[in-house]
């Protein structure tokens, strides 16, 4: 009863994004994820497990959901199913570690060369850490606007009540500042540099 409409709808949603088998797979993957979610809820209901509306989700559940969406996103962004599979293979380490011979030589030599070689990987790792901290640590927009019922269904409260929007002057300042940044960022020019920094 659930599987057929879910797969049909998600397959259509997938190919709506583009003509390519990778979009169909993207849709079917999400249909599979949703079907598993429904099956899990039915299974728990039959076992008499009542969900706690205030419970934080288990770490493993968050990890499984994140990884599932990540795999789907690879198909969504890839130019073809073949390149998506190649990319997934790379993510699983099937094409080697990606460490260049220059990096290995620099690692062996140490000193300034190593610091130069390490600069970009460390910069990327720092960016990843900062962005993951935002994704996992900060509330999303639904949590921020929770008091105004922005969505159907249950919205988990944010860890800190202070980040929930209220019509007070603190939030007015935040709103004004956010609007300011949004306006300033419209139509700007990026930097072209003859200079080497």
């Amino acid at each position, binding site marked *: 009863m659930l599987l057929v409409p879910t797969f049909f709808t998600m397959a259509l949603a997938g190919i709506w994004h583009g003509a390519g088998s990778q979009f169909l797979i993207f849709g079917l993957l999400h249909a599979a994820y949703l079907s598993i979610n429904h099956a899990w809820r039915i299974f728990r209901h039959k076992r008499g497990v009542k969900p706690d509306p205030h419970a934080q989700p288990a770490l493993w559940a968050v990890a499984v959901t994140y990884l599932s969406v990540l795999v789907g996103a690879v198909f969504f962004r890839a130019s073809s199913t073949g390149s998506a599979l190649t990319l997934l293979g790379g993510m699983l380490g099937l094409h080697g570690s990606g460490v260049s011979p220059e990096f290995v030589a620099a690692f062996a030599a140490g000193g300034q060369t190593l610091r130069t070689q390490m600069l970009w990987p460390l910069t990327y790792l720092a960016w990843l850490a900062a962005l993951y901290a935002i994704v996992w640590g900060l509330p999303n927009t639904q949590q921020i606007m929770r*008091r*105004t019922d922005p969505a159907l269904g249950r919205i988990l409260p944010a860890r800190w009540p202070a980040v929930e929007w*209220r*019509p*007070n*002057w603190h*939030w*007015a*300042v935040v*709103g*004004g*500042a956010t*609007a*300011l940044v949004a*306006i*300033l*960022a*419209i*139509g*700007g*020019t*990026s*930097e*072209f*540099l*003859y*200079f*080497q*920094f």
Partner: protein
Amino acid sequence: MSFSTSSSDLIERDAPAGARGERSGSECGRYLLVAGLVLVLGFAAAWIWSARMKLAFLDPEYAAWTAKQQLVASCDLGDNLVVGDSRAGAGFLPAALPGSGANIAVGGAKPVELYFLLHRALSCQRLPRRILMSIDARHFDSVDTFWTRSARFGTFSTADLRLVGEVARQTGDRSLFAADGSRIFPAPVREWLYAHSFPTLNFASMLRAGIGLRWWRNEREVRLTLAARGQHLFGDAPGNDDIADEGRLDRFSILPLEKVFFERMLQDAQSRGVPVYFVTTPVNQATAAHMSQHLVDGFREFLRGLQDRYSGFHVLVAPVPALPDRFFGDYFNHLNAAGARLFTTTVREALQQRLGEAAAAR
């Protein structure tokens, strides 16, 4: 200011409906007032910062540009005024030329930019004895960084940009106005917004600069550029063998609008009795090996035609000389310090010879 208890909802649910609506409306009004004030005041502050404090957030090329504008504003030009693009900015050492001098060549400059810079310089009471002009072949047929750097730095007033628009209409050459930077704003206000440093133009630089952390470095760059009389290096690697853009051009061509402004420059100089010596800056051997003969011939022919029509225009170094790769500091074929010394010496010798010949002819 307090217009809501810390834990209240937008609408106080216990109050009667009328009072609830009034309170809600009043709270919303005050909320929007504060948000609007933050937006308006913040935007005003960003605009003032964008217009008045560019040295705090733009890249070091702006610092060099500022130093050159100061030389022009104070009419401190000396005997030899160097005008041109970034290769000229790096390659000409005014102190090594005969007599005094100033290098006001700026990155990405094409005839349209140079016309306005030179026009200001030639408004000084004490004029330079000669102009050394250098623009590479690519900059005659390019929109390059007209909006994204020249206009953003403040090269043009609103009237200047309107004149550019007028020439574009007359020549039918809309290339500058089809460039990315032009389409950011609608035509009726574009010139004014650029000339007044509208803050959205500089927001990316402000972010990259941490709002104002480039101030100290740029201040130092201004002092160094002034001390070098406007000359400043770009890349200073001990050599470069990348093929510059000339290596990819099939032939020499000039945009109609650039041709108009180039000739206006020559007319300006001629009307003030200042001779112009055109000097082609060198490319590295890698580029020279890939350069089309059509390009070189076309460039030479163009300059020769101008020489025939303007008595004060002389080609001092014809297109396109080459130097060993070790004299170049980056991909753009900017000369490094050693290259600038060698090149300026060559120019000085050529200039002295030409001046000697002219004196002998008199």
